[in-house]
């Protein structure tokens, strides 16, 4: 079974800049996962354009199976020349991991990629390629479960220069920091957030350079199957039972009516747990054989809000540990699953939308869509099954 790539990236902009001069492009398809981190020269708009062009061109060309030399030539020919320094310039790191566990890493002038395996930082067998007088380093290797690849723009290793640390913290310190985080069994998102936050603090909250971190953590796949929204056609209720019976991993039922259907089809009872009730979120319930049963729209909406707070740093991990349906749902989807199979009732299938539809159903559709977007933001694999 192919391994799952838990991918996350975070950045902070140089002080007073509205745009980030670094860019991370992630492409996930059936064949491989591609992550490109580019750091454009300078800062602000110009750097942002350089970085965006570089990362997008590289990711797109690799996705279309072009050779790396072609990619480099295209970049060289496409990037606008910087008017100050008279050169087209953007540093980058490319990581492509194929389904057969082969990884291809290409580094150009960014700080070296930190590769953590079995609790140690391992030295990559880098091969130098010459390209128009510049050195590009290429590594081909096989990945294993638990591997962590962290790569970042030079803003990370310059953090603290002239502020708290005379010469910034060096690559060694930054990589040790990542290594230490890996012992804490953190998710990719937590590692990238922790590193960027630390840099931000070292800069005294006034970053002297755009600072971006991308983290890929190799994990085994963990499945969750979520049933949300009843089918339009009641005769299909039996199909829900069939789907849930052969569902992968943990099972979630999200929605009051959905819960009633499942309970009826399985001949079980819905027991509401009042202790998880709060003003914001309706209580969860239990059905034998289902791992989590929650109400639908309100709970999902709150789950989205919690995750949004987490992403935007308004709060930490505690959002996943509250005693309510939304938090439990967030925890299961974000921390305990890599792949989510979402069974959606026809009754919210957009193909069936018509103006006579009751409002609440379109609300549900909208909220579900937002939840899917959010899961994809966390680079989760989401499969939708319409019934």
């Amino acid at each position, binding site marked *: 079974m192919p391994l799952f790539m838990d991918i996350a990236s975070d950045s902070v902009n140089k002080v007073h800049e509205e745009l980030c001069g670094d860019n991370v492009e992630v492409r996930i398809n059936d064949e491989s996962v591609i992550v490109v981190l580019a750091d454009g020269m300078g800062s602000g708009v110009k750097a942002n354009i350089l970085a965006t062009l570089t990362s997008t061109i590289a990711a797109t060309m690799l996705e279309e199976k072009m050779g790396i030399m072609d990619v480099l030539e295209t970049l060289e020919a496409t990037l606008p020349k910087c008017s100050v320094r008279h050169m087209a310039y953007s540093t980058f790191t490319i990581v492509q991991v194929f389904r057969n566990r082969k990884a291809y890493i290409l580094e150009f002038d960014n700080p070296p990629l930190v590769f953590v395996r079995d609790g140690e930082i391992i030295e990559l067998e880098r091969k130098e390629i010459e390209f128009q007088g510049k050195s590009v380093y290429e590594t081909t290797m096989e990945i294993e479960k638990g591997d962590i690849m962290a790569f970042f723009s030079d803003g990370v290793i310059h953090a603290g220069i002239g502020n708290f640390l005379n010469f910034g913290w060096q690559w060694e310190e930054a990589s040790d920091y990542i290594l230490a985080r890996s012992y804490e069994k953190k998710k990719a998102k937590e590692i990238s957030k922790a590193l960027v936050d630390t840099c931000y603090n070292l800069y005294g909250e006034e970053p002297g350079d755009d600072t971006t971190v991308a983290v890929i953590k190799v994990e085994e796949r963990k499945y969750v199957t979520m049933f949300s929204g009843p089918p339009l056609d009641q005769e299909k209720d039996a199909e829900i039972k069939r789907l849930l019976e052969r569902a992968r991993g943990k099972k979630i039922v999200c929605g*009051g009516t959905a819960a009633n259907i499942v309970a009826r089809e399985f001949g079980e009872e819905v027991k509401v747990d*009042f202790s998880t009730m709060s003003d914001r979120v309706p209580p969860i319930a239990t059905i034998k054989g289902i791992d989590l049963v929650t109400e*639908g729209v309100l709970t999902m909406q709150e789950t989205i809000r919690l995750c949004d707070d987490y992403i935007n740093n308004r709060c930490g991990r505690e959002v996943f540990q509250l005693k309510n349906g939304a938090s439990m749902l967030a925890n299961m989807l974000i921390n305990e699953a890599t792949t989510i199979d979402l069974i959606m009732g026809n009754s919210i299938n957009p193909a069936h939308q018509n103006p006579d539809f009751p409002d609440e159903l379109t609300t549900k559709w909208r909220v579900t869509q937002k939840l899917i977007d959010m899961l994809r933001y966390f680079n989760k694999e989401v499969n939708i099954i319409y019934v």
Partner: protein
Amino acid sequence: MKTIRVCVGSSCHVNGSYKVVKALNQLIDQQELEDEVELVGSFCMGKCTEGVAVECDDIIYAVSVENAEEIFGKIMEGK
């Protein structure tokens, strides 16, 4: 032993099932009826438009915080 089921589905939650549950619990406490009444939750009962749906002995009442006491009285009289 009576079982009172309070709907906690989306729509009833918005209409205040949290407060109704609190109010009913308080009434049960005050009148020391813990051994006679059991309060349980239920997902959608299909009566979404008429306030918080509360069911007892196959009758569904539309309850709000304001009329909780009155309806609770009605339910208990019918025992």
